[in-house]
C-alpha cells in the first residue's frame, strides 16, 4: 500500500474546506470532495484511494445531520468501480486512448453521482444536472492541469 503524499492530502483537505465554505455560494454546482474522490481513484493505488474516499465520505456525512450515510457508501464504491474500470481499460487500450478513457470514467462517476442523489431526493432537474456536469468537468480539468500532471503520466506508465 502506497502512502498518499502530502501534496494530495493537502489537495483533498482544501477541496473539503472549499465545499464547506462555498466561496461562490450555491451558484457553483460543484462537489469538490467528490472530484477529489474521482481524482484519487484514477491516480492512486486501490487501497489508499479506498481509504481516502471512505474518510472523505465519513466527513461529508458528518456534516449532513439526520441523513443516511450515503457518502460513506457511495464514495468507496465509485472509487472501486473507477479503479477497476481504469485498470481494465489500461491493459486493453493503447496509450493514446488512455486520456479519453480517463475522462470518460470521470463523466461516468459524475453521472452515477447524479443518479444516486436524484433518486435519493426524488427530483428530476435536467438543467441542474447539466450545470453540475459541465462545472464539475471544468473544475476537474483544472485540478488535473495544475496538480495532476505528473500523476497522470505516472499512471499511464509514460515516465517509466
Amino acid at each position, binding site marked *: 500500500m502506497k502512502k498518499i503524499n502530502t501534496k494530495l492530502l493537502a489537495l483533498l483537505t482544501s477541496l*473539503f474546506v472549499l*465545499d*464547506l*465554505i*462555498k466561496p*461562490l*455560494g*450555491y*451558484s457553483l*454546482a*460543484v*462537489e469538490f*470532495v467528490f472530484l477529489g474522490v474521482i481524482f484519487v481513484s484514477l491516480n492512486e493505488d486501490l487501497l489508499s484511494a479506498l481509504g481516502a474516499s471512505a474518510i472523505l465520505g465519513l*466527513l*461529508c456525512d458528518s*456534516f*449532513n*445531520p*439526520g*441523513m443516511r450515510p450515503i*457518502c460513506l457508501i457511495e464514495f468507496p464504491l465509485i472509487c472501486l468501480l473507477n479503479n477497476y474500470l481504469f485498470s481494465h481499460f489500461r491493459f486493453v487500450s493503447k496509450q493514446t486512448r488512455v486520456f479519453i478513457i480517463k475522462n470518460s470514467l470521470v463523466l461516468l462517476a459524475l453521472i452515477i453521482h447524479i443518479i444516486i*442523489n*436524484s433518486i*435519493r*431526493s*426524488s*427530483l428530476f*432537474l435536467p*438543467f*441542474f444536472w447539466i450545470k*453540475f456536469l459541465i462545472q464539475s468537468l471544468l473544475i476537474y480539468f483544472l485540478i488535473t492541469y495544475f496538480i495532476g500532471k505528473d500523476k497522470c503520466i505516472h499512471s499511464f506508465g509514460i515516465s517509466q
Partner: protein
Amino acid sequence: MYLPSKTKLKILVIYLLVIFLLFLPFKNVIRNLFSLFSHQLTISSSKISQKNEKLKKENISLKIKINESKHLKKENEYLQKALNFKESKKIDLVGVGVLSFSPSNWQRYLLINGGEDMNLKKGLLAINEEGQLLGKITEVKKTFSHLLLINDPDFKISVFVGKFGSGLLKGNLTGAEILYVEKEETIKKGDRVWVKSDSLSFPIEVGKVKSIKKRTNQLFCNIAVELTSESIFFNKIFIIK
C-alpha cells in the same frame, strides 16, 4: 466723390464747438455717472462671484459629507433594516452567523453559530435582513444549530398563496414548489406566497407565484415559486424566537 463746401464745413466746426462747450461742464458728471455705474457693476459682479465661490465651497463640503454619509449609510443599512423590521413587527430576533454549508450539492443545510446557549429551538424560522424566509432550524446543539434552507428538498412548510389559496411548500434545489393547492382558480401568476403561524402576528414573505401547472387527471395543482430570498451569500441570519 462728394465734398462739402467751405461754408458748410465752417458751420459744422462751429456746431461741434458749441456742443463741446455746452457739454464740457457735464464732463465730470458723466464721468462720475460712468464710474458709479461701473462701480456698481463691479460691486454686483464681485458680490456674485463671492457668493458663487461661497456656494462652490459649500457644494464641495456637502459633496464630501454626502460621500461620508454614503459610506456610513451602506455600513448601517444592513443592520438598520433588521432593526426596523424588528421594531415594526415587535418580535424577538436573534442574529446568528453562518459557520459552514453542507458539502453536498443536493442538500441545502447551514451550520449556524447559535444553539442552546442562545435559547434556539427546533422548528424556529430564519429570515434575512428584509424579513424574507430563509429556512428553519432542524437540529439544535449546545453552541451550534443546523438550519435547513427553504430550497432544500426536505424543507416543507404550509404556506398561503394570494388571498385565499394555501398549500404545502417544498424545496427543489433550484427554488420551491407548492403542492396540494385546491383553489387554483383564485391564484394567478405573480401572487404573493407567505407564511403565518400561531406564534407570529404578521406574515413572512416567501416569494411569488412563477407558474401554475395542473394536469387533467390531477386533483390538486402544483405551483412553482420564485423565492424572494435567493441570495447566494449569507452574512447574517436572523432567527425569530
